[in-house]
């Protein structure tokens, strides 16, 4: 339970707003951080904390692409495919990226090893640097597919190294 685990942080968040319901977004982030994604339970918890209906909490979670409503990979990759970016080849870039990772080229998805989730999203406010890829909220701009492949391999290696470390630790 968030309320038990993070009483201080929740208090700080509430302190910033005139009423409880206004704190819903930071609390959704907190829940996402804790559970990896916004499970039904997480939404109910946040709704309870903010004194709103779970339907309202989910409405907010559903509107913003930065809230995940499904489990996602360790690396959560979002590519803007909106019109301005598409004019700079972002849609093509997205398809190629999906193919490289072996997921549905239209809608994206999560790789079988659970490492990567790719999603097309609306404007990420980097229209002038398209194609843009956001990895766990970090921007990589002016990409082409070759550059992206290098990034993917770098992350893959990173993850493998971490795993080895964990194994040793056990």
């Amino acid at each position, binding site marked *: 339970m968030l309320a038990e685990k993070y009483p201080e942080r929740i208090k700080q968040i509430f302190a910033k707003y005139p009423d409880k319901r206004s704190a819903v977004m930071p609390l959704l982030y907190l829940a996402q951080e804790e559970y990896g994604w916004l499970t039904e339970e997480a939404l109910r918890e946040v709704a309870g904390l903010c004194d709103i209906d*779970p*339907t309202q909490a989910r409405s907010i979670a*559903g*509107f913003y692409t930065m809230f995940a409503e499904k489990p996602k990979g360790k690396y959560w990759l979002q590519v803007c495919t909106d019109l301005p970016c598409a004019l700079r080849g972002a849609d093509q870039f997205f398809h190629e990226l999906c193919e490289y990772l072996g997921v549905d080229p239209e809608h994206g998805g999560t790789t079988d090893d659970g490492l990567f989730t790719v999603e097309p999203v*609306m404007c990420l406010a980097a229209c002038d640097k398209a194609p843009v890829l956001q990895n766990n909220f970090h921007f990589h701009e002016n990409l082409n597919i070759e550059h992206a492949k290098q990034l993917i391999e770098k992350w893959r290696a990173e993850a493998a190294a971490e795993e080895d470390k964990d194994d040793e630790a056990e």
Partner: protein
Amino acid sequence: MTETVKITIDGQDYHVPKGMNLVDAAKLHGIEIPTFCYHPKMSPAGMCRMCLVELGSVQKDRESGEVLVDENGEPLVRWFPTLQTACTQTVHDGMVVRTQTERVAEGRSSIVEFLLTSHPLDCPTCDKGGECGLQELTMEYGPGESKFRYEDKHHAEKHVPLGDLIILDRERCILCARCVRYCDELVGEPVLGFHNRGRDLVIETVSDPPFDTVFSGNTTDICPVGALTTADFRFGARPWEMDPVPTICPHCPVGCNLTADTRLSADFGGKRAIKRIMPRQNEAVNEIWICDKGRFGHHHSRAEGRLRQPLMRRDGELVPVSWDEALATVAEKLVQHGSKAFFAAGHSLANEDLWELRKLARQTSRRAKLGLCPATVSGAQAVQQAGVGVGTRLQDLGAGDALLVIASDLYEHAPLWWLQVKQAAERGATVVVANARPTKLDRYAAHTVRYRYGEAARVLHNFAAMALRNDKLDAELLSARVEGWDALEEELKGSRVPAEQKSAAEALLEAQNLVVLAGNDGMGFEQHAELMQAAANLLIVSGHVGRANNGLVAVWPGANTQGALDMGFTSEAVGEAWEKPPAMWVLAEADPLGEDARMAQAFDQADFVVVAAQFLTATARRADVVLPVQSFAEREGTFTNGMRRVQRFYVAQSPLEGTLPAWKAFARLTERVKDGPKPFVAAEQVMQEITEKLAPYAEMSYANLAHVEEQFPPIRRDDLYYGGTAYENTGGLGLQWRTDAESPRKRLSVRPVERSARRWEGLLAVPLRVLYDRALPFAASALMDGHVPAPYAELNAEDAAALGVAEGDRIALEAGAARVELTARVNGHAPQGVVLVPQHLGDVLIAAPETCVVQKIEE
């Protein structure tokens, strides 16, 4: 007078109320601005863009404020460069609008075209077809063809239950958010929301329970397309095949105006049946809303269990007999018992029935007593003196006004009033809720006053004492025509007022207008009489009587309790019948044996019992003769609501063969008793006689009760300003009878009330009324079964602990002659020392508070 501003629409100048929405202001002058998402009863959202207009404002010189003119002397107008949504504009002086230009036409046509790219156009199988906003607006403004490819149409789920009564078709939804705003703003239960965005945007609920407010059906009216349908009517009939018949809800004292949509129906033997119930607009009563009990509770009129033949007891069994035989037998018994016959009516008989029952009683004996069952309320005189003024509309109360709700759980007892009081609070009215237990309205109250059961009258007495203390008296009224003030003043002087009541009273007494809604939660009729008198005292001494939006609203238990009191039926008479059981009972739509264990002994010694009923109730099973009478749907008549508005209902459904309207049955009996008068042939004649003999009804007739006036905002089903499928009022707005306070020559009287609360030992069982119960006839509308809980009792946590009872345990409860087994709930609603027992969920025969013994049933 309301302030106005000058606006110009399509070259014409208009004066419109300041602060009005532009779409409404245009409509006020007959100019249509088409809308989908805007609804005059809700705040604007600007979601659909259908209301696009050219918008500008007259330019003025900054310094002088003079209107600037061009070389032709015409005012200079600064136009917005693009089309603007009219629904998000509030009118202001100098606003200039064009609604008929080519640009506007193109804007509207494009919006329709866009909407249709994601609309299935399955009108032939859509319930809304024929009364659909999208159809109407497409015909009027649509381009007639589409630039988009049909194959690219958006597809979505077509069957999404939002609860068990309302079903969503996501493909038809045009995402106007009317349903969302309705739940959030009007009802205050935001259980519908949007999910996702862009092309994937959908309406959904993840609330638990889902969409189960008692006002859910209204969303299907205001939805501008066929996206929301009721489980009751889905695929039931086409709108144009049905005949709309104006009627009145028989379920509670609000008296919502309804329209019954009827059609010849194969599953009703080819006869005319009600296919659905819709709201009918009456801005003084229910506006355009109704609750789900009214909307879905009509099935009882066609239920299996309806009685279709008179029954008579032979060799201990009730067997079918002819009307003639039944009436002859009853008449003979009436003559035989004379003054020992007792007559009692229920709370939802029509005025015409009550009048004929009264005539029958008088014909039987000049001294005949008229009782009201259940015998739980009193206070006719308080209403007659201090009832709300003629013309009162709860929707007119706002900032500067106050409403006091006492001894009532409005949400359960009169849902529409709950909705209106809540909205008044949101408009800035001071709402004070005084109850012995928490209720749903507390959330919207500026002050909540909690008293112990039995002390309700004392609270109002204290409020009146505050009026005296703070010099909030209407001295002129008191000196001119109020009797008993001296004695009351003496009593008020001595009152000690607790602090929380002081602040609540002060808030109320500050108000311009004050309405008191008084119920009878947790009291017997004796205490209720005192509460009503205390309410009248408060209103009279503070001068909140005799004008619109001031006075007393009685939250009676039934749709026509007021009518019954007007005709002289009283709880007090039933009280006397307990003391001195009559030899013969004549009961009309009253079921004392089904609701009050104390009544059994009063029937033990009865020689003859006659029951007029729609169903074989507990009392009917004990009867010697049972007369099958018609439901509200099958006959005409009038009800008088809790604001004394007499309202007509009409014949909607083919009567069941073998049944009679109750008034006719009684009239035929009267004729047989000592050569009584010939029966009338039409209900209208009965009303005619009522108006001749009953003073308050003197100015009424079926003709003037049927009088209608233009309602604003106008909600018409085929309007381009699409307010939904509520019906226009063609059946009549009804008339309120005038209180004594409104007749300047009538004297008013106040008196000190009995305030010493009855103390009780141990636990007090307090019966509650809940909206969805198993009382007949409503119980026979099986559609609502899922919403009626199993019998339960609410215990206070401390009492439960002392008894060793936990949430969910089975308990046995004994109160006087009543004994029931129930499931315990321990949820913080019951005050200490009190067990709250909802009536009519099972065999809970407790009609008034009574001390009780509770025991846990070990499994």
